[in-house]
């Protein structure tokens, strides 16, 4: 089973890369852009059939390695 997880910076944590992307999009005449926050996406294939159990396991992976909880939040999709 494949589980998807995203890791993003917490609100209030400075994201210079997101800001640079936002400024570039604006300069490319995407005037609609109000804010950009950059994050990471993980596609994790596990040998667990039960979806709930698989998600719980990926959540544990986020807590222990994929996200640094000092500055990042994660979400299992």
């Amino acid at each position, binding site marked *: 089973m494949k589980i998807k997880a995203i890791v993003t910076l917490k609100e209030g*944590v*400075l994201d*210079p*890369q997101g800001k*640079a992307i936002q400024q570039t999009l604006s300069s490319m005449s995407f005037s609609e852009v109000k804010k950009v926050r950059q994050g990471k996406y993980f596609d994790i294939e596990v040998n667990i059939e039960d979806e709930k159990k698989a998600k719980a396991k990926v959540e544990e992976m986020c807590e222990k*390695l*994929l996200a*640094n909880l*000092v*500055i990042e939040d994660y979400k299992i999709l």
Partner: protein
Amino acid sequence: MKSSVIIFPGSNCDRDMDVALKKFGFKNQMVWHNEPEIPKSDLIVLPGGFSYGDYLRCGSIAGKSKIINSLIDFVKSGRLVLGICNGFQILTETGLLPGVLQRNKNLEFICKNVFIKINNNSNSFFNNIKKNVLKLHIAHNEGNYFCSNDELKTIEDNNQIAITYCNSEGLSNEENNPNGAIKNIAGVLNKEKNVLGMMPHPERMIDKYLSGDDGSIFFENILGNFK
């Protein structure tokens, strides 16, 4: 006095550190990260570099190495651990030091000499250094120290901010902050003051004819605590 430099795949300041430690009288040994145990040491150094290509987050993968458990035991025993640059990032990722090192505010790799002010000298890393300001070298992409407001208060209350970026006169302000680090923090200690992580490279400042001599002062001071 015995020291150990731990090498991870992608470490690249390990040999400079070896030269520095030996120059000031440490009997140094190089230890591969996959070793289950650290040989007998008085000081462990995690060197600079780009362990695991900085994949995921700087220092995050090295922070899960086999040797880390034995490093944690070593820290508990009260002996000294020093992390330079990537070594500092690894120490924050393992939770041995508070906070995190983020991408530099200006998104540029910074490589230059800076001044740092010694903020806390009641520890074995800075205790007998007469100077208040040292000139050291920095070279990093992720040196922007960050922690939550609560954590900041805790480390301030516990006197864990070891060094801050400043000018030649010792003034720490936004103008003298190379990377956006909160409160100009260049290095922090753990609560017990036996673990130090710092972005500047003292091992690059050990020859007055080549670079500068302030790194020598730093190493001589550490060694002085063992005499």
